[in-house]
């Protein structure tokens, strides 16, 4: 049993060790990129709770990410509010707005859901963009500093790493809980799920709020990390990032969005070093994955493994079925 557990989780331990040792191995530039990848991974994981697990494509997820960031930035710069409480406020604001937006969105499915989330996202973007007096408009907000203890890149990095690990743990619990199974069932077959006595809209709304709050957390982490926020953090382009990362990594696997985000973030940082045409490279990359690795990188690997174990299992199964 003990050994079996180790066999399953060795790569998690490896990842944790790499995460802890990273600041002593890589340059400060790449440490910043790593921090960004971790924050964006939380964002992508939140998105995939809706997309991969519940089967609804949210194309306005950046609105909650941006709201989390703006809440922290405004509380810190305008009110010199407590840093930790600002983070909590960022999560709460995103969650509460998620409750309102979600109330309308969960009544719809498929493309209609996607379009409505996009519309709400753009609406919130425009409000922040145009309301210059309150939000700083297109200037955004600068000078968002973390407390003294977290000012050094390495300490803020460790802070991000801890929050990332906690988010992963929490989401892992959620997707394997009874509630998580309901999400999967709704993705597979909403009509059948309703006949199990499940009120679809209610569960979708709960998941929507969770995803909004977690996206808010990612944004709240980002603002002090980058020392600023800007309206484009709420924009549909930003909403597209977790979508692409998740498709790249594989939406049917838990860690797919993380793999996709890491790939995108590091590729971006690397390619930007010698060309501004990085979208072309990213686009080609996604095309290759979609055609050669259907299901995304992790999704494809998982499916292959499953097929192999299924094939290995079948002979026994056949024997029992044989007359």
């Amino acid at each position, binding site marked *: 049993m003990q050994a079996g557990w180790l066999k399953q989780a060795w790569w998690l331990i490896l990842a944790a060790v790499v995460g802890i040792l990273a600041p002593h191995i890589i340059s400060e530039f790449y440490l910043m990129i790593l921090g960004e990848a971790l924050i964006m991974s939380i964002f992508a994981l939140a998105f995939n709770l809706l997309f991969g697990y519940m089967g609804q494509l949210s194309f306005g997820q950046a609105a909650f990410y941006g709201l989390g960031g703006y809440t922290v930035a405004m509380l810190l710069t305008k009110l010199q509010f407590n840093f930790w409480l600002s983070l909590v406020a960022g999560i709460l604001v995103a969650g509460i707005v998620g409750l309102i937006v979600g109330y309308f969105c969960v009544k719809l499915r498929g493309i209609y859901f996607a379009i409505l989330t996009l519309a709400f996202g753009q609406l919130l973007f425009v409000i922040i963009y145009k309301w210059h007096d309150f939000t700083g408009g297109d200037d955004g907000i600068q000078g968002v500093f973390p407390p003294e203890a977290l000012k050094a890149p390495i300490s803020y990095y460790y802070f991000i790493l801890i929050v990332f690990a906690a988010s992963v743990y929490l989401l892992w*619990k*959620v997707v*394997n*809980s*009874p*509630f*998580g*199974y*309901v999400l*999967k*069932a709704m993705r*597979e*077959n909403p*009509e*059948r799920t*309703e*006949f*199990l*006595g*499940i*009120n*679809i809209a209610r*569960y979708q709304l*709960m998941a929507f709020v*969770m995803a909004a709050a977690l996206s808010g957390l990612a944004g709240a982490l980002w603002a002090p990390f980058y020392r600023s926020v800007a309206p484009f953090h709420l924009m549909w382009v930003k909403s597209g990032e977790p979508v692409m990362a998740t498709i790249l990594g594989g939406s*049917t696997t838990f860690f797919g969005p993380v793999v996709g985000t890491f790939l995108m973030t590091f590729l971006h940082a690397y390619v930007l070093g010698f060309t501004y045409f990085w979208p072309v490279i990213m686009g080609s990359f996604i095309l290759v994955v979609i055609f050669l690795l259907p299901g995304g990188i992790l999704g494809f690997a998982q499916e292959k493994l499953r097929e192999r174990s*299924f094939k290995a299992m079948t002979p026994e*199964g056949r024997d*029992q*079925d044989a007359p």
Partner: protein
Amino acid sequence: MLLETRGLTKDFGRLRAVNSVSLEVSQGDVHAIIGPNGAGKSTYFNLITGYHVPTSGEVIFKGRRITRLPSHKRCKLGITRSFQITSVFPKLTVYEGVLLALLSSKGITLNPLSRAMNYFKDEVWHILEDVGLAEQARVRGDSLSHGDKKRWELAITLGTGPELLLLDEPTCGMSPEETEATMVLIQKLAEERGLTILFTEHDMGVVFGIAKRISVLHQGMLIADGEPQAVRASEEVQKVYLGGVA
């Protein structure tokens, strides 16, 4: 009386799919609803499960009027159905599907932090053994054979802890052996679990083999209702439906 419909009517535009059907289903009965294609059987089912809202009439379950109650609430009361077009969960395993139904019926699906797999192990295995799917517990829905999908469907339905089970063409598309096994299973469920079963079926062998009571729909109307022998003997039924079959 477990279930009663009074003057139940459903119009789709100008088409009257179900026309003033008044019917009683007794506790513990295996009750068949038969009729030619387009007789309104499926629509009648949908009115009982809450998929459609009737144009007029009432649905009464255990003395309570449920005519306008949404499906998920009816399910909680103990009415549940299987689907004619097998409509299950392609990416969930057989075990997970049944577990999900149990989690839902026991009202713990709102729990986001405990481990789903730790619940109801005995109950899930018990149901899987009852329907003969224990061997396939780890198989995913999209890898099951047609007959097994139907059995899984039934297992999921059992997991919701129903009192009234509606089965829409339970043996549709099955081989003779599978059909036989399903008939045995339905009778076993009614006897051992005390379920009331209301089912539609086009295979008259199945209907007369297991039904204790038969109701015949024709063009949306109830034209006969009673013991199998009486229904078989009815001239009207002979004329519109059974033909030479019986």
